[in-house]
């Protein structure tokens, strides 16, 4: 009797989690596993310091090259302009905000790989935020948050689905994982009329609410066609090495709620118009 009860309870937890990615007591459990993972990760860091240092130096190099002092302005281009507009017409507003985080636990050998980050709700992390690695390539998205830690569904998760596009032509498709090789993901839904070559860059599409556009995902490694749909089945070598991932950025789309609301309202409006006819 107790056996049946416990079985039913565990299966209920499992299937509920698979739908919602939100486990019972996950708040407390996350805090506990998080603090353990942080300690182990501290130790683990010592083994990657050299590599991490080189990567950081490369990144600094690319940023230093962008500095204004590297460019000189030709004198003839200078002139005095009086701006008559009362409102700054080129005023910019922020759409994405980046927060740093550290991966404290990560696996690649399961079919459902999650990562745990050392930032949580206290730091402003919310569900559905994009996670990019320190070179700006796509890692995954946040699925669950506790006070001090958050869980990320990496691209290497059979339920993960990210809107991606070919950089060259802009044709969008769906990025998924077949659970087989942790170095490759699959891009589906790109029409066969598009010319694709091995080595083409794949980036995040402009249509995603979660991910900032044009962020590197990987490069086409193998081209085949899906016999069921007549679309391409592109094998993508990921830009991120998931086995050694350390530092990441969590990117928030500040307009996400507005975009979603608009979409919902539009659906409602169209629905009502249909009824009115």
């Amino acid at each position, binding site marked *: 009797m107790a056996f049946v009860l*416990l079985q039913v309870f*565990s299966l209920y937890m*499992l299937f509920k989690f698979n739908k919602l990615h939100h486990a019972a007591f996950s708040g407390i459990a996350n805090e506990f596993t998080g603090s353990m993972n942080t300690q182990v990760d501290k130790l683990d860091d010592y083994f990657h310091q050299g590599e991490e240092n080189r990567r950081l130096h490369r990144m600094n190099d690319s940023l230093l090259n962008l500095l204004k002092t590297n460019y000189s302005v030709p004198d003839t281009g200078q002139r005095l302009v009086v701006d008559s507009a009362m409102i700054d017409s080129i005023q910019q507003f922020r759409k994405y905000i980046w927060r740093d985080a550290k991966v404290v636990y990560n696996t690649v*050998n*399961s079919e459902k790989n999650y990562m745990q980050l050392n930032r949580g709700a206290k730091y402003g992390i919310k569900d559905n935020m994009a996670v990019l690695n320190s070179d700006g390539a796509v890692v995954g998205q946040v699925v669950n948050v506790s006070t001090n830690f958050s869980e990320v569904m990496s691209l290497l998760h059979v339920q993960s689905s990210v809107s991606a596009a070919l950089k060259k032509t802009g044709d969008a498709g769906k990025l998924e994982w077949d659970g087989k090789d942790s170095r490759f993901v699959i891009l589906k839904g790109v029409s066969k009329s598009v010319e694709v070559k091995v080595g083409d860059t794949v980036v995040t599409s402009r249509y995603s609410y979660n991910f900032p556009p044009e962020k590197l995902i990987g490069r086409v490694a193998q081209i085949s066609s899906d016999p069921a749909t007549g679309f391409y089945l592109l094998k993508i070598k990921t830009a991120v090495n998931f086995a050694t991932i350390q530092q990441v950025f969590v990117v928030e789309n500040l307009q996400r709620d507005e975009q979603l609301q608009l979409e919902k309202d539009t659906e409602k409006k169209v629905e009502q118009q249909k009824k009115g006819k």
Partner: protein
Amino acid sequence: MSDLVKNIFRLAIFVVVQVYVLDKLPPLHRFVIPVLYYLFILWLPFTLNRFTLLLIGFVTGLMLDYFKQTPGLHAAACVLIAYIRPFIISILIPKDTAEFNYREPSPAAMGLAPYFIYVFILTVLHHTYLTLLEWLQFGTFLDFLIKVISTTGISLLLIFTVELLFPRKMKFRTNTA
């Protein structure tokens, strides 16, 4: 050390080794996933009653689940083997020696062959159920079969190694002690 303290340490070590060593190893192949933690349940004392066994199994599984973000998956498998365990033991050990001379299952207590039959059956059950639950959500039947066989193989190899490396010193229980 009392049985309780010993087993609490054991549980902590098994979970830590599983989560921080075996799950972090670079995978040999996507089907070959080393799983060892459930040996904790196989090593529990004979004297525990069925309900306690089930409860310990559930907690063990759940601990691992929270680390691996699969709530319920390992808990279900552990509860299953904790439930089956007493039946297997009663089949493998003759009825007339109901009062065991040893505290917990080991090659010395049960004899080498019966002990490994016991380990083999529970390993197969654990992996079959675990993989079945995963397979219900994803994968093909062939994947399922290969995965059960290969994970069982690597787990048995690991258990063999553990038994050789860490022979548990088992006192022969007598009435005088």
